[in-house]
């Protein structure tokens, strides 16, 4: 038998219902929140350019995206929806990610904080050991195979595919170092990071007065020298006063000498490493012997700074002091090549060749990667995207310290002075030869090979060992290090 509702129960239900209706009616209107914010507007245009296909006489039209205007102005915009949040730990150099930039990003992206950690190898190891590696890590191309082998990197491909700021098609060739199907196949495939800027690293800088002093003409900046010609020039340009070197004939990044060897051997379709990078092959490869002998001879004739006759500082400073005639560094050096002494006296030359095949890739591709262990990948991507595609990237592009990582920013490189225009002319040509990717060894540290070479070079220069013994020592020590790396990683 059903029970009838009492009057009190009816009043109770009715009261509740009215209250609900009343409360619902009293809800504030949902007004779309509007905020005023400084918005960066980048205006790009797509133009058609006529280009010559590399290696053929074929002329084609290609669509190229260019930045034509960058503005920043306050604008009233709808408040963004529930934003990505998180504390992003970034391990970097302070002068490459300033406090002002950090503060600006945090102001523009409430909810995301950047925790800056000065780049330091010891601290990085400690953070990894603690299971809390930095979300974003500044690194260079040679580290990528090692990190990939240890599964330390976050696959950023999905982020790139939906990004409005960073497009895979807009990436400069140097970014291929951050792509790889495997640690031994770098260049294509999933992308794990990108470079902050880059340079074709094998170009030359000539100090004109040194050539005048030697009675030589500065080489033509449209025709590459051969390495053998560079050696001869170095001999003629070097100036000695008794045992003293007054003018170094040549200079190069000796701490990256193995990368130079890799590029030179690449001209001959040879590799420094064999058997899937499980061993270095110097004594069994006549081309590797010839290339390493070249650098040994440069040192033994005191044409370059060497372990027995080191530079007081580094060869970049020797050049700006007017005590080095011909220096092999990339475009990045153009920003500092002109000093009070060398101003107006510097010419950039194309990368030399060993066997007539032009190759001028970057050998560093300094950039950043995201840790696979990142707990805030979305927030980390926001920082990554901003650093590599927005204000910091635009500022870097105009600084002249490197070629922008995005092709659409190429036009932002400085070209006001005659020197900068000359550099740009050479650089534009070198771009054609910058598409190759050096394959670094995933089982070795970044500087192991160069370090072992330098140690044995001193013994060889002093005559304690012969050149053949030097090569054998380098091979043995590097192979030992490779085996250890295989053991640790595999």
């Amino acid at each position, binding site marked *: 038998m059903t029970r009838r509702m009492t009057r009190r129960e009816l009043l109770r239900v009715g009261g509740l219902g009215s209250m609900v209706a009343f409360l619902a009616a009293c809800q504030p209107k949902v007004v779309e929140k509007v905020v005023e914010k400084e918005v960066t507007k980048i205006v790009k245009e797509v133009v058609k350019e006529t280009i010559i296909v590399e290696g053929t006489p074929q002329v084609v039209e290609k669509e190229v995206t260019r930045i034509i205007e960058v503005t920043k102005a306050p604008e009233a915009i709808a408040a963004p929806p529930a934003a990505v949040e998180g504390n992003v730990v970034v391990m970097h150099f302070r002068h490459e990610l300033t406090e002002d930039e950090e503060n600006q990003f945090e102001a523009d992206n409430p909810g995301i904080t950047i925790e800056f950690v000065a780049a330091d*190898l*010891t601290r*990085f*190891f400690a953070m*990894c*050991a603690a299971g809390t590696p930095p979300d974003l890590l500044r690194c260079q191309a040679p580290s990528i195979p090692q990190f990939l082998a*240890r599964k*330390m990197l976050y696959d950023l491909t999905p982020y790139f595919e939906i990004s409005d700021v960073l497009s895979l098609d807009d990436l400069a060739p140097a970014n291929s170092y951050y792509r790889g199907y495997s640690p031994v196949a770098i260049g294509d495939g999933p992308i794990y990071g990108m470079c902050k800027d880059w340079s074709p690293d094998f170009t030359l800088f000539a100090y004109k007065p040194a050539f005048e002093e030697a009675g030589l003409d500065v080489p033509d900046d449209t025709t590459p020298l051969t390495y053998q010609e560079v050696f001869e020039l170095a001999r003629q340009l070097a100036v000695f*006063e*008794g*045992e*003293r*070197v*007054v003018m170094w004939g040549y200079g190069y990044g*000796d*701490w990256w000498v193995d990368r130079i060897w890799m590029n030179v051997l690449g001209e001959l379709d040879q590799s420094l490493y064999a058997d899937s990078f499980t061993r270095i092959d110097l004594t069994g490869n006549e081309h590797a012997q010839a290339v390493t002998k070249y650098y040994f001879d440069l040192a033994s004739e005191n044409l370059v*700074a060497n*372990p*027995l*006759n*080191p*530079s*007081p*500082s*580094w060869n970049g400073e020797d050049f700006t002091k007017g*005590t080095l005639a011909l220096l092999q560094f990339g475009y990045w050096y153009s920003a500092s090549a002109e000093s009070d002494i060398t101003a107006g006296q510097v010419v950039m030359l194309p990368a030399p060749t060993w066997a007539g095949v032009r190759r001028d890739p970057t050998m560093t591709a300094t950039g950043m990667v995201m840790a696979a262990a990142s707990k805030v990948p979305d927030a980390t991507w926001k920082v990554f995207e901003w650093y590599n595609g927005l204000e910091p990237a635009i500022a870097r592009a105009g600084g002249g310290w490197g070629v922008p990582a995005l092709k659409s920013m190429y036009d932002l490189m400085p070209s006001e002075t005659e020197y900068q225009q000359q550099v740009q002319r050479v650089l534009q040509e070198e771009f054609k030869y910058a598409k190759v990717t050096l394959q670094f060894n995933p089982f070795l*540290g970044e*500087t*192991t090979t*160069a*370090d072992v070479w*330098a*140690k044995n070079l*001193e*013994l060889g220069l*002093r005559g304690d060992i012969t050149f053949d013994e030097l090569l054998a020592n380098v091979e043995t020590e590097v192979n030992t*290090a490779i085996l*250890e*790396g295989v*053991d*640790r*990683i595999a």
Partner: protein
Amino acid sequence: MSTVQSPARRPSIRRRLSSRSWRRTVAFYTFIAPWLIGFVLLTVLPLVLGFLTSLTNYDGLNLANIKFVGLRNYTRAFADIDTRFSLGRTLTWSALNMPIWMILAFILALLLNRDVKGQGVFRTLYYLPSVIPVVATVWVWKIFLDRNYGLLNAIISLFRPGTAIPWLSTHALLGLTAIAVWSGLGWGMVVFLAGLQGIPDELVQAARIDGANSWQVFRHVTIPLMTPVIFFVLVNGLISSFQQLVLPLLLAPTGMNVPPPRSSYLYMIHTYRQIFVYQRFGYGTALLWLLFIVIMIVTLLVFRTERYWVYSEAAVGEEGR
């Protein structure tokens, strides 16, 4: 009727806890707790972890698949030519640096122990190099000793034009010694000076009354009474010289991981490079433990010789009996 003595009763726990000796024990450990905790956490624990690391193939990044290798890192050190070479260089460096530094510091202390005008100024000036940051010191000396543009070779070139002695490469150990002696003189001088000022004047005056000349006073009064200080400086100096790292590292040619020249390739340089260039954390920590053992042996040997040449009043008292 004999009375049976009841056995002595142990005080109750409450009485024991409130006893004076217990309170003193608690107070003792409370006062040393901060140091003890720091010692355990910052010294003992890292030592233990370091030893455990030396038994593995840890490279800074492979914690997930680290392998226990037993004593392989230790046996490797004995077979490694570079390890033996660097240890030899370190012994050579110690044998070169220590006597020069100690003798010069002692002479300076003797000179500054005299009552001369401006004594305070000279003491300050000689101590200044010890307080200059080591990076600044090395940079200045590098400019001075550079082969091609250095001041020293420029001065020598006045007499022998075109001189370019490689002070920072082939003769790097000499360059290193010059820098170490120059920057360390101040500390040694201060310690020796404190020792000299602790020598009672009455002994010197008594010797003079007995007809001793200055050399005899120095030989038979000053030196014996200074032997404890010399011993202290010797032991500390030996330990420091075996652990020398910063000077040769900064003196090396600038550049990413450019190795220091063989001449100044000391043991700690070799260890540093094993860890930070080759990422051989396990091997590097094994090298550090071996160095610890070497330093212990050397120090014990020096202590063993103490009774033959270090003057102590306790020993003299025993002889007098």
